[in-house]
């Protein structure tokens, strides 16, 4: 502790010395796993950023155009405030980044004056105006200072001037009168500058609008917003404002919360953002379902994240965060996860493994299973004993897995194309749901796929052909990406598609034949097996007759048209040579733990936080949180006197019925906390203990486990049963 120079006694506050903060990455960078984690995270973050940028620019295009237009001729809007209304969808957690990007891009492209007002900061009109004004008056001055540094024409005095005004601004001046005078000086300066430099011409040269972004319109107090708009309108002829309203629900929400005389102050223009489901699909396609990523989410983990998305919040941000967390969990503290890398880096990564790491690889369940299935004893022994052999095997197995992943995703996409528009969608419409099925169970043997196959056998030739050509496109693409095993499949499939063409060639040359035998025509043949039985059954009179007829029909072999033959051929080819080999569940592959993360038990409590469970766990097993020796329980039912009072009281209350007698409760509390006192049969209870008990009961009541009862005196009602 530092000493003071003061002679007198007293308390002195010492500011903690700022230690040069060491970023966490320095601590971690020594670890093997951290490097591969960083690489993996970096690559997916890069992809996400690119995608996010693309999607945001799509959304903002129209809006920015509008802002630019309004901003370049602010004189046109004296009577109304132009209000660009952006419908954002109900995925609230994503909005922060959306509007941050929007504000940045408006600043870059349209006008430097942008203020963002979040509802949480604006509980009153005063706070709202202050926040807005301070944002306007602080930010652009620094921007101007940069400008003046950029262009040599403007003098240094000016920037000094501005710095002075910047420091002068305090809350006292954050009102609209001051803002309007500030704006007029800025505008005058802008006009002066226009003559001298080209830079400000980028912004249209003239004075620009002040853009106020209100990202969460609904949560704004309606009254504040009304007055705020009226206020802005009053100044509109001096300071051209422009509002950007982020509305999560629908345009009518604006009219619901604003009365007529306020809503007629706004000139609204509506912009739509993309629904978050479409956004998620794009994220999945462009970032997560990429075969060349070394890290993938397994079916269960993916389902967990998807459930949170679909059922709870529609937040893409939350999904991405969950994905990142899974990745962290996958890598954290396990050096053998170095192996989670691209196939090219595998040989070098294997060399880094230590003896311990190899031991933990051996312990992986999938590896054990693999060793058990090995035929030769010698192999098994060398798996268990020989480290260099294991290293070689690991490389082999992992390259296999990477190849498998490529073909797996390609085949999955093909399957999805085939089945997505079947009636009733037995195999789900979306790729994401098909992925869940395929990666958790054996999809080839599932009843859903069988159902799909029967439905597919009713397809018309046009549909089938177009689907096949789509599939070929995907396969070619995957071939380019390195799914070499697909070579065979593509060749055969192309042969089959070619057959379709030859199938149709003779038909137009023999039109007469066609009309004579309609059942030959492939198109009609689709229906013919369905239609013909009903015709046959038309003139049946008795039951026995019907049975005979039916028997006859079953033996009667319905002649297949060439198209039908080809169709069954194609379908069986797809099933046997494509789906069966390539769609095996990832869990069947040895070492799948390194590529597919499926340990949801580890991440679930973090991704789906459940306060109630945490509380119960804390009460039942305080050691879990306190981590002290005194609270270690061998059995969860045990009650030790060293446990915290609430925990003791909670455990005692579990033993009772609906109503709990306070006196009995206290007695049992005393027996546990102070066994000696009870033996003595004291009538007087130690007031300290009683106070402890009372406090514990009150805490339990606050937590919602009990409540006071009116039925019986000195009793409380128990509220939970688990």
């Amino acid at each position, binding site marked *: 502790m530092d000493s003071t120079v003061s002679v007198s006694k007293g308390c002195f506050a010492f500011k903690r010395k700022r230690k040069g903060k060491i970023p966490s990455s320095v601590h971690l960078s020594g670890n093997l796993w951290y490097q591969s984690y960083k690489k993996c995270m970096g690559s997916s973050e890069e992809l996400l950023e690119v995608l996010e940028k693309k999607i945001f620019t799509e959304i903002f295009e129209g809006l920015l155009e509008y802002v630019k237009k309004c901003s370049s001729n602010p004189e046109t809007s004296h009577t109304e405030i132009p209000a660009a209304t952006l419908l954002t969808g*109900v995925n*609230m957690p994503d909005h922060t980044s959306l509007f941050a990007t929007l504000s940045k891009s408006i600043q870059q492209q349209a006008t430097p004056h942008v203020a963002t007002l979040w509802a949480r900061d604006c509980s009153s009109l005063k706070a709202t105006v202050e926040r807005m004004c301070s944002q306007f008056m602080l930010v652009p001055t620094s921007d101007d200072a940069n400008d003046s540094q950029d262009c040599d024409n403007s003098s240094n005095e000016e920037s000094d001037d501005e710095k002075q005004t910047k420091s002068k601004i305090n809350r006292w001046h954050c*009102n609209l009168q001051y803002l309007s005078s500030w704006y007029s000086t800025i505008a005058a300066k802008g006009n002066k500058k226009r003559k001298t430099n080209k830079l400000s011409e980028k912004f249209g040269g003239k004075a620009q609008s002040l853009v106020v972004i209100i990202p*969460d319109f*609904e949560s704004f107090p309606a009254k504040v917003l009304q007055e705020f708009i009226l206020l802005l309108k009053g100044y509109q002829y001096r300071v051209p404002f422009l509002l950007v309203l982020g509305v999560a629900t629908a*345009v009518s929400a604006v009219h619901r919360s604003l009365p007529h*005389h306020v809503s007629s102050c706004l000139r609204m223009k509506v912009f739509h953002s993309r629904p978050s*489901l479409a956004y998620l699909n794009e994220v999945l396609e462009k970032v997560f379902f990429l075969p060349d990523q070394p890290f993938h989410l397994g079916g269960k983990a993916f389902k967990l994240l998807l459930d949170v998305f679909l*059922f709870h919040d529609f937040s893409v941000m939350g999904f991405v965060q969950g994905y990142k967390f899974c990745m962290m969990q996958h890598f954290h503290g396990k050096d053998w996860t170095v192996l989670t890398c691209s196939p090219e880096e595998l040989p070098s990564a294997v060399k880094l493994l230590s003896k311990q790491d190899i031991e933990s690889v051996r312990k992986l369940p999938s590896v054990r299973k693999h060793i058990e299935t090995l035929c030769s004893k010698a192999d098994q022994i060398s798996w268990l004993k020989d480290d260099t052999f294991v290293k070689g095997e690991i490389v082999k197995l992992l390259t296999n897995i990477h190849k498998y992943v490529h073909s797996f995703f390609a085949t999955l996409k093909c399957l999805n194309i085939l089945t997505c528009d079947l009636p009733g969608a037995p195999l789900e419409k979306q790729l994401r749901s098909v992925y869940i099925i395929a990666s958790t169970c054996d999809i080839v043997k599932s009843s859903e796929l069988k159902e799909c196959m029967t439905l597919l056998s009713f397809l018309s030739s046009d549909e089938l052909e177009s689907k096949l050509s789509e599939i070929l496109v995907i396969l070619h693409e995957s071939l380019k990406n390195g799914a070499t095993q697909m070579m065979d499949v593509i060749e055969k499939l192309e042969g089959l598609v070619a057959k379709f063409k030859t199938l149709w060639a003779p038909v137009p040359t023999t039109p007469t034949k066609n009309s004579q035998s309609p059942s030959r025509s492939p198109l009609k043949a689709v229906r013919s097996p369905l239609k013909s039985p009903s015709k046959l059954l038309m003139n049946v009179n008795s039951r026995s007759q019907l049975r005979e007829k039916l028997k006859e029909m079953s033996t009667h072999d319905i002649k297949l048209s060439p198209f039908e033959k080809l169709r069954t051929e194609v379908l069986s080819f797809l099933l046997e040579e494509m789906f069966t080999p390539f769609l095996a569940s990832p869990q069947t592959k040895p070492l799948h733990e390194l590529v597919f993360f499926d340990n949801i038990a580890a991440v679930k409590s973090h991704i789906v936080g459940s306060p109630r469970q945490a509380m119960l766990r804390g009460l039942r097993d305080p050691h879990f949180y306190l981590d002290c020796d005194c609270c270690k329980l061998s059995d969860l039912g045990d009650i030790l006197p060293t446990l915290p009072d609430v925990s003791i009281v909670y455990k005692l209350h579990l033993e009772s019925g609906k109503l709990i007698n306070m006196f009995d409760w206290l007695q049992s509390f005393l027996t546990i906390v102070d066994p000696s006192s009870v033996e003595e049969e004291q009538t007087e209870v130690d007031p300290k203990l009683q106070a402890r008990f009372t406090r514990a009961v009150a805490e339990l009541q606050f937590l919602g486990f009990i409540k006071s009862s009116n039925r019986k005196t000195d009793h409380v009602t128990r509220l939970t049963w688990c």
Partner: protein
Amino acid sequence: MGVLDSSFDILCRNGEVKQLVSLLGQPEESIPQCIFISGHKSSGKSYTIHKVLDGLKVHYASVNCVEGYLPRLIFESILSQIKGEILPPTSKCDDVMEFLTSLKVMADEMNLHDKVVVIVLEGSEKLRDMSPNLLPALMQLQELSCLKKVCVVLVSDVLWDKYIPPGGLPPPIQIFFQQYSQSDILKILALDKPKDYPADFYSNYLQLFVAVFLRSCRDITELRYKAAENFSKYCEPILRGEIDMNDSGRLWKHISPHLKTSLQLIYMRFETEKLSSDMDLMKPMDKHSTLSSAAKFALSFELPYYAKYLIIAAFLASYNSPKEDKKLFVKLSGRTKKKVQKSTKNTQTKISSLVVGPRQFDLERLLAIFYSIIEEKPHISVNLLTQITSLVELQLLLKVGNDPLETPKYKCAVGFDFIVIIAKTLSFNVTKYLVDYK
């Protein structure tokens, strides 16, 4: 001073102008302390007073009281307007006393003792909610500041009766602005006549326009806006050469559907360029034209799965009394069934709770109902609980009270139509759980 009324260029407000001029136009005579101008929204109150004061060439300051979230802003604005320049940032004027002193100082400096100074306070109903002595002080400014020619003009769309606090106030001179009559409106709208068209033609159009709009709107600014917006449509067939300019019958046929849709969008100002896509917006609405606006609102956005159930649960909690919960949500036994029938008989005499409006309910009850109407049982997670907060943020639920320690209480903010649509998407039968639904 013989100022003629006509020199003010104010239509249809002759009486009021005369009154104002007689009150303020004689600087040699005494000036009233306070004038109270009331009248409906956009009936020309501010316009008239400003024009009159401009015409009389008196010193005046005009402040909109919306700004007055801090009284100092009103005071400073008044002072700076009288002075004609922005006050130096050092001068503070926090309360009425400081305002009075600085007003006196300023009067001495600018020699205002014998000149008429008018302070116009627009939207003065806001003053009532501010500090209790502000309004009385402003109304007796002449007395307090010892400036004999100061007059405060309060402009408001609230009647004077609503101003009087329990302690009473000296009654000001009141001027009431009548609503414009139809002929007044026609006269005023005719001022906006575009140059390229003859006056007859435009007044014809206005006749049609006003006939449609007058019933639902007398707001002159809105009418002017709508008239200009629809006039371009009115002229479209003429510009295309399809209809002759004098063929008013066919022009009427052409414009009347436009006027009707435009009437639906009154006060909602959408960008005019966007009109084509506005029509697209209207199309799906036409499809559900039988639906109420709440139902349209429900159709226009998608909620997450559990959020839908939560909002339904909130609705049920709001519109059923807690007594009925057991009957509705616990599996029925024979005995309780009889009770249900009885109670329905009773409720027929009462007012249906659907009409009364939402009751408040606490979080526990909401969750209990939520768990009894949903088939799968998701465990209470943070994600689920945040859904409630985001429903509050979306204004679909309302939070009642703001005690952070108490269990939060809510009210459902959406109506039956909305819930029916939401329930339809889940194929869930809400009416089964509503006691008062017939």
